[in-house]
């Protein structure tokens, strides 16, 4: 880590584990529930948020001294909306099928609490470099959870990863399916994501007991 000082490195590493936006701050849950039925969608969502947060944090940080504080929320919304529209258009141009599955949820990145939260809490008060690192870190923390949840939900729910069958063919009964295995339909529906996220929180807190809040 010669590139970054320890303090800067923590901006990226903290949100990955001990200050994760989803499992610790419990932000951005809605999209984590909605789009994680497939790994591919999770990855695309993670990358989109990475882009929006990295660039958005830089823009807000650049503007931080000229934004009147009364209308800062509106300015933030405009920045994030612009970035989201860019993502949406890119997806429509290069991954049309996927943009249909993600549909409204790309647009809803605008309301993702993590993004507005980081703009408010960090980018408005910090320099460009640190804001960028913070944005990347939080987006990665969000993305990691999304990908873990997406991995388990797609594997157990559909028996595929990135749409490629890994457990055999459920119709021709090959692989695991030949011995009576069946896909778990529960994993396809959004409540399953809530439970998978819950299990991740459980595992994380039992490994690091300092995270458990006082009752």
């Amino acid at each position, binding site marked *: 880590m010669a590139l970054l000082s320890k303090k800067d490195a923590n901006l990226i590493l903290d949100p990955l584990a001990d200050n994760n936006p989803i499992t610790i701050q419990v932000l951005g849950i809605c999209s984590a529930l909605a789009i994680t039925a497939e790994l591919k969608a999770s990855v695309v969502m993670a990358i989109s948020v990475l882009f929006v947060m990295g660039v958005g944090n830089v823009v807000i940080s650049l503007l931080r001294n000229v934004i009147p504080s009364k209308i800062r929320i509106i300015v933030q919304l405009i920045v994030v909306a612009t970035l989201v529209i860019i993502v949406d258009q890119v997806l429509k141009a290069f991954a049309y099928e996927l943009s249909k599955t993600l549909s409204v949820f790309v647009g809803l990145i605008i309301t993702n609490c993590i993004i507005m939260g980081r703009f408010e809490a960090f980018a408005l008060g910090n320099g460009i470099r640190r804001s960028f690192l913070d944005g990347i870190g939080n987006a990665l923390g969000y993305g990691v959870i999304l990908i873990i949840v997406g991995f388990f939900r797609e594997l157990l729910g559909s028996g595929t990863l990135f749409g490629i069958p890994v457990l055999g063919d459920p119709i021709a009964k090959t692989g695991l399916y030949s011995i*009576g295995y069946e896909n778990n*339909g529960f994993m396809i529906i959004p409540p399953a994501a809530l*439970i998978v996220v*819950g299990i991740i929180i*459980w595992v994380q807190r039992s490994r690091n007991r300092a995270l458990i809040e006082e009752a």
Partner: protein
Amino acid sequence: MGLKEKMHEIKLKYQGKKMAPAFNAFHTFLFTPNETTHSGSHLRAVDDLKRTMNTVILALVPCLLFGIFNAGYQHYSAINGFPENFSLFEHFINWENFILGATTVLPLVVVSYGVGLLVEFIFAVIKGHEVEEGYLVTGMLVPLIVPIDTPLWMLAVAVVFGVVIGKEVFGGTGMNILNPALTIRAFLFFAYPTWMSGDKVWVHDAVERAGTADAISGETILGYLAQGNNTEMYAKYDLSEMFFGFIPGSVGETSTLLILLGGLFLIFTKIASWRIMLSAVLGSLAMGLIFNMVVDFGWIPEYSKFYGLMSFDFWQHLIVGGLAFGIVYMATDPVTGSQTNKGKWIYGFLIGFISVMIRVFNPGYPEGVFLAILLMNVFAPTIDHYVIRGNVRRRMKRMKNATILPDTVDGAGAELKAETV
């Protein structure tokens, strides 16, 4: 030295060790421990948690036995046709039915108990607490509320899910929000719907034979009604068959008679709340009556897909499907149900009411008892909260309005005041 003393000695030897809870569970299951209370009040009642659980299991045994025979009866009748002049001992209680039923039902029981207790033991050892008895009843309920042909590995997965997510994450027995047995059933239902609904899963072998020349059907009564085939249903089953339970359904839930007896047993041993049972029955009758009235007034056309279930006589809802079983054995769960007496009336009534409502309006699957009970499980603490607040408010009001008499020398005024509050 007898086994009892030996076990006491082993217990002392391994006290505080990691596996001690696992051993203690067996020990206290077999014998009363030789410990005595060291301090505080010494009050001993015989109805400890184990006794409570065993009483419920006792009440479930008739359902289990009936389920075993019924599994065989439904299977052979579906193949050979239903007997013309049904005789209980000739057609129902015979070795053929028993052997087939035992070989299909007992594995469910074994898997349910084996997996569930294993999870409980693991958690007890990790957390270092004693193994709680909570799973004894759940383990018996689970095989009775699933279809006969549920693959064993699915049951095992569901049991792990139900015990861990439904119970252990909340802190184990007595802390759970949802009834674990119903959590297991709900998981099975949402995860593997093809094995939990339809007209093939309720009779042994029907899934295997589907699509072949030997295909057999095992449509449940509610299944017929959901498709509007009321006349066909009545041609196949009559009311006494529904009441006595010679109908396809989940393993142990078909016989309303035995459930009724089990319920009375639980009421007389004061294990289960009669308030919940009675109010749930009333609730389902009320909803059934409303639906019947809708039909009587002609507000719903006959071609409507709800017509079959809506026109079903309101009281007959109680003798088909899992309603009776759910009311007697699941709704009355003392942990997940309401605790206050008034709360129990509301809780029970809504269970019955919503069960029949879901039954009629559920587009995918004509049964809703487990969903209704799980929903009310979630609301039970809220109901209790408002019942208690209401009580507090009423008494506060009474205190405010109480006539305050001047304090007399002998304190009679103060006494009177205390009485009115």
